């Protein structure tokens, strides 16, 4: 049943399903309802990390090294724990700067350097070629094996070289066509490929299910559970040693540790991982889920690796069947056609997932960071004047995809045969690990410079070429093998596998140690030896301090120059197309409350920066910079100016906080001062009034005293009776004078708080009685009837007896003063209220106008004057009384209506 056509048809059907998923996801994305805006889809798309290497190669590695395959999956788990610090930052930076690829990221960080972007692209392409060839090898090998069903024949034994090679070539071409259809259908300014991500997530499910199916089949159907499987393996002396494998492997724990480090770097810096993790990320919060879900996926896909490996070793005579094919050959030898086909599809999905994302990522790099910068600089092409460049961009990317896959095929033919799958993949891992110092240094260390990054990358890559790629070619016979055994020109110190005599390590560990030393050493050393330029300084600050800046406008403050909005618009339209450019400008204008194209937009730094960022999304930061520079004249910032801006920026936040606080304090102080000033002014006015009133009040009795004494002095012959009358007036006025002076003194003592208070228990009943008695003569003289309404008993209050008497006398004399002689009637009431004692003095005088009721307690207010035409006392009495009552926590007020008498009342709170 498993003939070639069936397998091929199934494969195409599977690819068709993928394409349908991608198409559907793209449609949904265009409709604004993305299917991939989901943390689980995001996590599954990260599982593009598990390729044919994982699917076939892990078992192969396990069959020779035991648990030696695991660091590749444990490393990412350790790294992902740090993603909250590292990856979140990278994602934030990339979103703000519209980063389109890893090369773009590094180029952008180090001053939008086109050279650096180009170098990174070249390293990435060359470094990834072995990895792509691995996928081609896996698919073509698995196909070759599967078509032999039910025989188990290793491809090497077939002897039909041309046929197998053709398989790999066909696989490469089909995948290229498929990737082009997937990834370069249209140009997106944000470089999102939502359809691709959805398809990749689906592929992750397929490969996991296929692998688990084989695992369950081998462990539980072929054998009686893991215990049985391992027990049988332990019974064979050759396999028992593999249960304790770490000491058996060259390098042992050191190799284990280095593989862990290597995979920690790979999970971040493989171009396809950067693509799905950073570029395709729709929402930073998806990281929360991915941080545990992705490691969980890796545990699941590794769970059955060792059982399958031991199953294969137990099943097949040692060395007859390649460990890399156990996943496929075990179902085949057990005549499980369906399972074998499922495995083939699982392997296919692992390989296609990797190839699709990797080549899309690489083609974006090649286009944006290698080809476009060169084309844009070639003035003879007059690219600046082409109205629409989107087709050119897409064309370059399609070409790059085909080229990369063909190069992968070439590598497979040249060097792929001598190595197992995992070894091929590790060479690529070591290559992308070279990006780690430049990226990690770039986001956490402002001191890293462009020349430092260049030096580090080139040094590390050179060591990689020498210690990993060169030996791969030598082993395949394309270079003399003596190069490995004796060193170039027989210099033993330069042997690629034991550089400077460092022997006894496995190849990867050896290469990692030297390349990382060279890379980090050169990066740090060169960075420290020269100070960065303006662009580098600016970008360093934008990247390292990304969490401290707000929004996308962060880069605008560094730009100074002149530009015109229509030119910027035309530029954008050339690269993105009219519709996208229109949308971008509308969005920009809308955010500023304007309309495009109705309102003229000011071509300020913000707009220029906006356009550059939009453009960067399509052609990369370095190219975007060149293009924007072609229409906008930028005035160069000097390094001092930049430093100033940067210093300002970091200090401005602190300053503005302080300023805000200060101004708040100032405001509060101002309000207080203003109030105080008002009060002072009022007091001043009152004092003036007071002084003038007091002098006026003093003058009246003085005048009369003086007048009468003068009469007595000038007319000594005044008769005795008249003299007596005069003297009586003088005495009365003197008394009035001294009373006034006493009251003024009293008032000033009370107001200044210097008055003496002697608080005792006061029985209000007896006080009222005493006061009335004291006033009885006055009442009799004026024939005023006094009525007391006193309860039997009232709650005693704490107060100063003399002062309260003063208040009572004041109220009583006021009442007496205003009563008409002969018809006067005064009622004194005393009541116990819930929390205070209330005293009322009611008269039947003329009453007080409501307008005046609030005023009579002021100093020197005498409402009665206007009625009677003569002064009645100083005008201080009520004021002092109220002060006294308020001193004891009470209240004093008046209730009255014109013509109905007045009722003065006060309360004193219960002790």
């Amino acid at each position, binding site marked *: 049943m498993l003939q070639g056509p069936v397998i091929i048809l199934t494969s195409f059907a599977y690819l068709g399903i993928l394409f349908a998923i991608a198409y559907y996801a793209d449609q949904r994305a265009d409709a604004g309802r993305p299917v991939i805006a989901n943390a689980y889809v995001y996590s599954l798309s990260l599982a593009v990390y598990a390729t044919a290497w994982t699917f076939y190669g892990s078992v192969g590695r396990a069959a020779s090294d035991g*648990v030696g395959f*695991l*660091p590749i999956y*444990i490393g990412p*788990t*350790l*790294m*992902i*724990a*740090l*993603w*909250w*610090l590292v990856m979140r930052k990278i994602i934030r930076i990339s979103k703000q700067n519209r980063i389109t690829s890893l090369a773009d990221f590094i180029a952008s960080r180090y001053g939008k350097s086109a050279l650096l972007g180009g170098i990174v692209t070249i390293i990435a392409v060359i470094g990834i070629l072995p990895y792509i060839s691995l996928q081609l090898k896996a698919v073509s090998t698995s196909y070759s094996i599967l078509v032999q069903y039910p025989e188990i024949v290793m491809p090497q034994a077939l002897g039909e070289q041309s046929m197998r090679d053709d398989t790999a070539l066909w696989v490469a071409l089909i995948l290229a066509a498929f990737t082009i259809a997937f990834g370069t259908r249209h140009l997106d300014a944000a470089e999102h490929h939502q359809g691709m991500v959805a398809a990749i997530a689906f592929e992750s499910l397929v490969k996991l299910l296929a692998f688990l199916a084989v695992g369950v089949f081998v462990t539980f159907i072929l054998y009686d*559970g*893991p*215990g*049985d499987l*391992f*027990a049988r393996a*332990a019974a064979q002396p050759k396999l*028992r040693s593999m*249960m*304790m*494998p*770490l*000491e058996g492997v060259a390098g042992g*724990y050191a190799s*284990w*540790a280095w593989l*862990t480090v290597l995979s920690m770097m790979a999970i971040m810096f493989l171009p396809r991982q950067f693509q799905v993790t950073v570029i395709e990320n729709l929402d930073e919060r998806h*990281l*929360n*889920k991915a*941080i*545990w879900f992705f*490691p*969980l996926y890796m*545990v699941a896909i590794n*769970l059955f690796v*060792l059982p399958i490996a031991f199953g294969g070793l137990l099943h097949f005579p040692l060395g007859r069947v390649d460990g890399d094919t156990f996943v496929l050959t075990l179902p085949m030898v057990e005549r499980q056609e369906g399972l074998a086909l499922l495995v083939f599809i699982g392997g296919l999905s692992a390989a296609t997932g990797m190839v699709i994302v990797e080549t899309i990522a690489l083609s974006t790099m090649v286009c944006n960071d290698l080809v476009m910068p060169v084309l844009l600089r070639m003035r003879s092409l007059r690219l600046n004047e082409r109205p629409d460049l989107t087709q050119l961009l897409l064309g370059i990317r399609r070409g790059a995809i085909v080229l990369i896959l063909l190069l992968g095929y070439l590598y497979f033919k040249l060097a792929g045969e001598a190595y197992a799958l995992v070894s091929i993949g590790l060479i690529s891992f070591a290559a992308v690990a070279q990006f780690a110092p430049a990226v990690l240094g770039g986001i956490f260390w402002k001191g890293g410079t462009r020349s430092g990054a260049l030096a580090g990358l080139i040094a590390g890559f050179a060591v990689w070429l020498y210690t990993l790629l060169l030996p791969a070619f030598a082993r395949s016979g394309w270079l003399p093998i003596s190069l490995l055994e004796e060193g170039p020109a027989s210099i033993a110190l330069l042997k690629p596998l034991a550089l400077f005599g460092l022997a006894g390590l496995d190849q990867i560990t050896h290469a990692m140690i030297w390349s990382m030393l060279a890379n980090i050493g050169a990066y740090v050393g060169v960075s420290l030896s020269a100070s960065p330029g303006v662009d580098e300084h600016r970008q360093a600050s934008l990247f390292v301090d990304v969490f401290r800046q707000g929004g996308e406008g962060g880069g605008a403050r560094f730009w100074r120059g002149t530009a015109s909005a229509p030119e910027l618009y035309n530029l954008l339209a050339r690269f993105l197309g009219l519709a996208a450019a229109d949308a971008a400008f509308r969005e920009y204008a809308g955010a500023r409350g304007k309309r495009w194209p109705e309102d003229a937009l000011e071509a300020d730094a913000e707009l220029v920066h906006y356009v550059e960022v939009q453009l960067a999304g399509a052609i990369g930061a370095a190219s975007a910079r060149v293009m924007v520079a072609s229409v906008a004249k930028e005035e160069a910032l000097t390094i001092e100016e930049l430093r100033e801006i940067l210093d300002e920026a970091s200090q401005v936040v602190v300053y503005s906080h302080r300023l805000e606080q200060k101004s708040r304090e100032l405001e509060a102080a101002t309000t207080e001062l203003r109030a105080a000033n008002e009060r002072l002014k009022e007091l001043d006015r009152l004092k003036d009034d007071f002084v003038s009133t007091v002098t006026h009040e003093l003058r009246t009795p003085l005048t009369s005293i003086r007048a009468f004494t003068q009469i007595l002095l000038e007319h000594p012959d005044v008769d005795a009776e008249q003299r007596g009358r005069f003297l009586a007036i003088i005495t009365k006025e003197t008394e009035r004078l001294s009373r006034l002076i006493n009251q003024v003194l009293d008032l000033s003592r009370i107001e200044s708080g210097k008055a003496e208070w002697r608080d005792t228990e006061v029985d209000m009943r007896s006080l009222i009685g005493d006061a009335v008695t004291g006033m009885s003569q006055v009442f009799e003289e004026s024939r005023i009837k006094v009525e007391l309404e006193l309860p039997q008993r009232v709650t005693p209050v704490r107060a100063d007896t003399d002062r309260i008497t003063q208040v009572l006398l004041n109220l009583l004399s006021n009442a007496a003063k205003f009563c008409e002689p002969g018809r006067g009637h005064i009622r004194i009431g005393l009541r116990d209220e819930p929390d205070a004692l209330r005293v009322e003095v009611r008269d039947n005088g003329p009453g007080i106008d409501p307008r005046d009721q609030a005023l009579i307690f002021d100093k020197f207010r005498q409402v009665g004057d206007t009625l009677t035409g003569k002064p009645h006392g100083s005008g201080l009495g009520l004021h002092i009384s109220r002060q006294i009552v308020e001193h004891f926590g009470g209240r004093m007020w008046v209730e009255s209506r014109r013509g109905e008498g007045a009722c003065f009342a006060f309360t004193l709170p219960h002790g």
Partner: protein
Amino acid sequence: MFKEKAKEPRFVAICMLGIVLFNFPVLALFNVPGTLFGIPVLYAYIFVAWALLIVLLALVAER
């Protein structure tokens, strides 16, 4: 809501723990012959430790 800043030291600690668990000498302690419920000790250890790390990651990440 868990403060974003507060997550950082926890994640770093989990990473440190992972590095300790999956390296010499802890790894060597379990690199011994024999089986645990029929599974080679080292193999069982690695997967248990791995699962522990993931549980910790999930606890911190999802808070």
